[in-house]
């Protein structure tokens, strides 16, 4: 099976410079210049000028997509992102899920594989759900589902018991699921484990023994303070000490 690497798909991601809110990135007039540009998170276009709205690293892809990469912990729900949520309430046919944003997300009991009005999937309070946000904007409360457009689970649904979930900063979550980052693969050479990463900064890990799970959790938490290269060595040392 051939696939484009992450970098090729994005068309060559490059870091431009560090920007602060209010910094002018470029002036853009839709009437004049040739091609169109795409503005991602952290940028806004006002009065013909593109300005940064967040402090971070301005990045661009070769397909003229610009965005600001920020280090932050607070999750702001975004459509089509995969998140891990905790069931907090049951209101009739709807469950309320805490996804770490300002509002709780809702999920209908029919949004699971093979669910119908007769065969319900009952969720207990405190269950962990891995799903996709289908509605997420500033005007409405977020909605989640655990099936794709063809009614298949595709890995989503209730997470099995026996794992451990912890919070990381959003950029760490994005980093470990990046195909170009071999961190999770390096860990797998020492310990066999299952991991689910939510874009809301929640990571769920399950391994055979409790001490392996705690060790893996600490290895991933190392990425908050170190680059993946530095963390690689320390993580391997930690896991070897475990054996």
């Amino acid at each position, binding site marked *: 099976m051939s696939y484009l690497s992450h970098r090729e798909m994005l068309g060559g991601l490059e870091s431009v410079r560090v920007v602060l809110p209010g910094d002018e990135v470029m002036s853009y007039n839709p009437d004049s210049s040739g091609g169109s540009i795409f503005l991602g998170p952290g940028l806004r276009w006002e009065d013909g000028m593109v300005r940064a709205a967040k402090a971070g690293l301005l990045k661009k892809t070769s397909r003229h997509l610009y965005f600001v990469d920020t280090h932050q912990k607070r999750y702001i729900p975004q459509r089509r992102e995969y998140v891990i949520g905790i069931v907090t309430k049951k209101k009739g046919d709807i469950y309320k899920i805490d996804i770490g944003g300002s509002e709780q997300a809702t999920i209908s009991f029919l949004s699971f594989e093979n669910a119908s009005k007769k065969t319900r999937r009952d969720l207990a309070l405190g269950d962990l759900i891995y799903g996709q946000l289908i509605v997420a904007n500033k005007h409405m409360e977020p909605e989640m589902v655990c099936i794709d457009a063809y009614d298949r689970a595709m890995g989503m649904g209730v997470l099995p018991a026996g794992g451990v979930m912890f919070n990381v900063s959003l950029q760490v979550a994005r980093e470990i699921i990046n195909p170009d980052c071999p961190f999770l693969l390096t860990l797998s050479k020492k310990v066999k484990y299952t991991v689910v990463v939510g874009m809301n900064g929640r990571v769920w890990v399950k391994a055979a023994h409790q001490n392996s799970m705690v060790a893996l959790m600490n290895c991933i938490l190392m990425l908050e303070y170190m*680059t993946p290269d530095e963390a690689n060595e320390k993580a391997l040392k930690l896991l070897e000490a475990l054996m």
Partner: protein
Amino acid sequence: MRGLNVALASVNGPGDVKVSNRLYNRSHLEVCYSPSTGHSMIRERALESVIMRTVEQAILVHLHPRTAINITIQEMQSDGLALSASVNAACMALLDAGIQMKTTFAAVTCCITPSGTVIIDPTEAEIQESVAEATFVFESSGEASVLTAHQDGRLSYEDFKKCLHHCQVASKDVFAFYRRMTEKKYQNEIES
């Protein structure tokens, strides 16, 4: 931190908000200022109000309706520059939290002595002996327009303009500091 003036600021948000404070089209901002000694009284409420009105002009509140953004400031040490240290700490906390803003902002305090000299970042002793004290908060664009102006004492129009000009020049240092700190934070990623 400004010499002996230290303020600690933290930002929480955009998060959940009480129904009574919920606004349909924007975020609810709350500033909580705690003095280093004693209980919070009217002086702290006044500072909170000045800081809130400054911060409101910078944050893009319409991006997060029905949420609350809480800014908590703890005064650790004060030597006359409590307001400007707190405002600058609040700006850095907002940058760190990743809350979307129109601009960054920087506060500078100055005082005018009886002989007419303008002192930037005076100590508490210098403020006591001065005729008037002024704090200006500027935004980061080229012309550095004023977001907030706060004065104590008698200032003639000429003196006011002098203070404003000196503070405007001094604010460039604060903005340069913000940029240096942000570059330091992301330096690992710039290299890769």
